[in-house]
């Protein structure tokens, strides 16, 4: 029973990881840049949705408008910063995204302050009782929304003409340019989509655990996700996201208590700390040692 409970919680957070990691992979495929500001997009998205909710807008409107505004933020980032750095080294561009992360955190700090804010209820409160397991609507909604959007995005990418142009630009941007695809517009769209997905991810995280600047740390967890899934694989990001979410939940709920009990019986150690926060990075190191291209990645994809 505990295992099932943990699995459900893990799947819910995992789906949010997947949503945010998808955006990183999308930008990487299209422009070769690993976007360190993805966590900042999640955080900003959550604050913007919070702001809209406080204005008194209905939940669904706030979430949607929040995503649209985040898409604009992503597009502006690409137009104002990335497009001016077309000839710069990729590493320089990545450093700029790191700067953007710090900048956006400072902006949110200046506007909303350093304290954790209780996020308004955007989903109905309450829980369903499923064979003795209580699952709050919050978790269900987060899971359903994040999964639906991730899968919807994959379908868009695979089956529509805009998706086809995205794939072509990601596959070989010079070839795409030569056969008449407006590649910079495609890169713009990729940034807008990534930011919107991250914004929703941030809002969902805030609805589960409150709103704070710490939401931007999700960007750091997204990196193990994409390394495990493969830096250039969208499906890999999705699957690895779920995997990591479940692994974290099990570490917190089963491994940590058992390990602590064992350690107390043989030593003076009382606690192992937040072991679940270490797990993604342990997995990252293991993955880089055993299969550096990730589960679904193509050999030769660059590492960061």
């Amino acid at each position: 029973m505990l295992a099932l409970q943990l699995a459900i919680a893990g799947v819910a957070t995992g789906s949010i990881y997947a949503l945010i990691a998808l955006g990183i992979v999308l930008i990487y495929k299209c422009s070769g840049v690993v976007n360190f500001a993805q966590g900042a997009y999640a955080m900003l998205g959550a604050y913007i949705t919070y702001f809209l909710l406080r204005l008194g807008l209905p939940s669904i409107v706030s979430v949607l408008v929040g995503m649209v505004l985040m898409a604009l933020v992503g597009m502006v980032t690409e137009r104002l910063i990335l497009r001016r750095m077309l000839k710069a080294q990729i590493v320089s561009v990545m450093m700029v995204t790191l700067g953007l992360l710090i900048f956006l955190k400072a902006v949110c700090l200046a506007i909303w302050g350093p304290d954790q804010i209780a996020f308004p209820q955007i989903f109905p409160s309450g829980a369903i009782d499923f064979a003795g397991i209580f699952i709050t609507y919050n978790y269900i909604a987060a899971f359903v929304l994040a999964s639906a959007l991730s899968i919807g995005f994959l379908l868009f990418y695979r089956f529509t003409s805009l998706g086809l142009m995205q794939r072509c630009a990601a596959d070989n941007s010079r070839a795409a340019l030569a056969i008449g695809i407006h590649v910079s517009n495609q890169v713009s769209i990729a940034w807008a989509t990534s930011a919107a997905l991250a914004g929703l991810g941030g809002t969902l995280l805030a609805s589960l655990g409150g709103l704070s600047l710490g939401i931007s740390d999700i960007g750091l967890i997204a990196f193990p996700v994409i390394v495990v899934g493969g830096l250039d694989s969208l499906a890999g990001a999705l699957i690895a996201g779920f995997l990591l979410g479940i692994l974290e939940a099990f570490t917190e709920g089963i491994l940590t208590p058992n390990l602590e009990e064992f350690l107390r019986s043989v030593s003076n150690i009382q606690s192992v700390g937040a072991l679940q926060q270490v797990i993604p990075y342990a997995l990252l190191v293991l993955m880089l040692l055993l299969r550096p291209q990730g589960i679904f990645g193509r050999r030769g994809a660059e590492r960061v």
Partner: protein
Amino acid sequence: MTLVVTDLSIHFGGVIAVADMNLEVKPREIVGLIGPNGAGKTTFINCIAGVNEPDTGTATWNGREILGLSPAELLRIGVARTFQSVVSLHDLTVLDVVKLGAAAHAHNAQGFFEQLFRSDHGRDDELCETLLKPLNLVDVAYSPIQTLSYGQRKSVDLARALASEPALLYLDEPVAGLTYQEGMNMSAVIRSVRDRFGCSVIMVEHKMDVVNATCDRITVMAHGARIFEGTPAETQQDPEVRRVYLGEA
């Protein structure tokens, strides 16, 4: 529907690649562009296809200046091209690449939301029938490009260009690397394309048997400029052309 190129020149550093090149292509005409290696044929095509920006000269299509337009803008007004070295794309299938060509055409241009939500599989059968079948590509329609032979990739590149329903088509060495039989098949396809779409074609090619079989008129380039123009028969007879290009026996 006439292409008129006047006094087009481009240099790279100290090398003058194209020097005061002139060319006119009439409606529904297939013009062969031949010349020794380094004569500036591909560079000339690149200049009028939006890849290189020439130093001087003009090029008008239907009276409209086309120099300075990007490949994407050219496609929208019906100017398409194929490439000497085939485009390398890893993950896309043959049909995907053809659809990319089709999407560029104004008639098929969809609004942003249509592009975003509508499945792009609606025209699969039609594209297979009209474009892939004549080029013997139906069997590999759903294969990734990278699994195809060189000759097949050349055909895919042509199918992609044709999918944009061009009014003016540049073919850069369409049969290079193909067997004699494949080359002759390609020649027949090019002529039938012209007959069906009524488009004008410029074809850069070295294989003289294919050029003679395909083209209505031949322009010979040497050192970046036009040195001769005439029918295939006239071209073969001309002593100057024989000297610089075809080689005196």
